[in-house]
């Protein structure tokens, strides 16, 4: 590899990462700006954080979003894990193509279509059987579970695909029934993937604006809906403060996870070396 080429790659990387992070950093910096005019620097201040803490509309929306995201993540993880298990482990069963198609389709479906179709379903259901009565938290949660379970299913399917099937066969061979095999062997081994799926579903729900907008009712405005209506009117320093807090939480979570993973990796390496040394 010539020096010129790697110079090109390094330049592109520097540019790429700057591109990704300058907007986030600018948001963080401006969240500490005294001025209401966001982009004109008028000195350091934390007043927008204080304002955020007293903005009941944003706080209520955040609480609602959190509640929906947790319920959604749990439901989506349950359903998605079942679907992933069926796709990865049950071989060719009748209806496999249908299930597989329904699991991948939400991933490529434009959000506006998913949102519209779910709303029309809820309206039709209400007309026919009276449920769900109106739109609100329930309809948002159902909608979120529907599209995020697909992501979980894909995560689980790909994790199970690389899990040595003979582990499950060995457990069965040693006398464990299939349900027990799942809980004693499969689940503990793929637990990290399950957690990753849960977090993914949580984030998707927490972040969703378009689908929620379609299926939300009066009084069930999630955080993205409120933020969207605010920023549509222009830049808002409180939103900067909110964004900063969210970025910091995510960054902290990722750093903790990263450190934990690195420690595990190191321990693993040490173990392997120990095993090689104690070989006999």
């Amino acid at each position, binding site marked *: 590899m010539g020096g010129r080429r790697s110079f090109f790659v390094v330049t592109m990387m520097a540019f790429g990462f700057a591109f990704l992070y300058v907007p986030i950093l600018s948001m963080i910096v401006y969240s500490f700006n005294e001025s209401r005019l966001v982009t004109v620097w008028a000195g350091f201040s934390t007043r927008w954080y204080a304002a955020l803490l007293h903005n009941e509309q944003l706080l209520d929306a955040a609480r609602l979003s959190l509640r929906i995201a947790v319920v959604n993540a749990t439901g989506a993880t349950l359903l998605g894990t079942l679907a992933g298990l069926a796709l990865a482990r049950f071989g060719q069963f009748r209806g496999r193509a249908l299930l597989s198609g329904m699991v991948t389709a939400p991933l490529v479906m434009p959000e506006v279509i998913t949102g519209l179709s779910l709303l029309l379903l809820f309206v039709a259901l209400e007309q026919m059987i009276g449920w769900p009565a109106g739109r609100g938290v329930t309809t948002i949660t159902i909608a979120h579970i529907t599209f995020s379970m697909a992501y979980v299913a894909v995560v689980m399917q790909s994790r199970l695909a690389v899990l*040595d099937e*003979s*582990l499950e*066969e*060995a*457990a*069965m*061979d*040693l*006398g*464990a*029934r299939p349900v*027990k095999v799942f809980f*004693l*062997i499969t689940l*503990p*081994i793929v637990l990290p993937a399950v957690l990753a799926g849960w977090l993914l579903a949580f984030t998707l729900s927490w972040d969703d604006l378009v689908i929620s907008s379609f299926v939300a009712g009066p009084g069930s405005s999630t955080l993205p809906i409120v933020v969207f209506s605010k920023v549509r009117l222009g830049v808002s320093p409180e939103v900067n403060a909110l964004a900063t807090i969210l970025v910091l939480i995510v960054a902290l979570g990722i750093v903790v996870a990263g450190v934990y993973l690195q420690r595990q990796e190191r321990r*693993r390496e040490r*173990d*392997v070396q*120990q*095993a*090689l040394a*104690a*070989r*006999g």
Partner: protein
Amino acid sequence: MSNTRPEQRPEAGPDGTEPYVRLERLTKKFGEFVAVDDVTLNIRRGEIFCLLGASGCGKTTLLRMLAGFEQPTSGSIRIDGVDVTALPPYERPVNMMFQSYALFPHMTVEQNVAFGLRQDRVPRAAIRTRVAAMLELVRMREFARRKPHQLSGGQRQRVALARSLVKQPKLLLLDEPLAALDKKLRQHTQFELINIQETLGVTFVVVTHDQEEAMTLATRIGVMNHGEIIQVGTPTDIYEYPNSRFVADFIGSVNLFEGRLIEDEPDYVRVAAPELGGVFHVGHGVSAAPGATVWVALRPEKIQISRTAPDGAGDNRVAGVVSEIAYLGDQSVYLVRLATGRQVRVTQPNIVRQSSAGRLTWDEPVWLSWEPGSPVVVTQ
């Protein structure tokens, strides 16, 4: 078929009782593909039975049907008098040692070995003693608290063995048990495996593609090809009395000559082989019509090579020229070109340390000869 080879021992007991494991007309199809084709096989109590064949010959499918992971398309499996064909793996008195060992990565060595006993709700104290005894047997007791990734390949193999033996299965299935070990460790482990089997008296069915492994481990070998069992016999039977060109060629190396039966007596036959440019005089009878096309299999180590013509009559000897020599240390391999153009492979043990002057060399004219008891005639 040749018919004067040693009688195969009867598979049923002398009193006519049923064999320990009986596979009857077992067939497994995956769609159109026939993985196992109408196999009938008997396995005796306490033996090490090796299923030997190239990859894709159906040996693993056969093993998985014994374990219960695959349902046969047709046919039945009986173990110790009980029909287990429809039983799920968790209800069969059979355990398996997997090629990948399949040790549960989130459990310690001890927990891995105890897993099977826990499923049977064996009392805790009994589990502890039996696990300890089993780990002692495989010399892994001091590693009881380790996780699988903290073990070397050989140690993992021993844990897998302990885990599959601790339930005292009626039948232990081993899928390529030594394939993941390096060569030195493999040779050592072969004998260890035999020792453990003799200590416990458990019946082993081993699947392997490695003929050396099969020859070392097995009391009997079943050679498989295209889903069928071609020949069943002791390692000696299989090597010395192959029943077909396939088996002769698959086990060890062999010189095969096509020929025509020209003399057929009860205690000997003569076969004219155009490629040899001479006649084989074979010291056993053959059940084939005179004039039939047969094949003569002659192992390289059973051929004498000499500079001077051997004494005696004209059969079982041929002249040629050395075309290739490979010195392997314990033995030398010669390729000798006959007048017909056919190459014959000959191996000679290097009994005496030879100076390079005494050795045969390239393009040297030589004579090949063999005893009437050495070649085998196969008809298929």
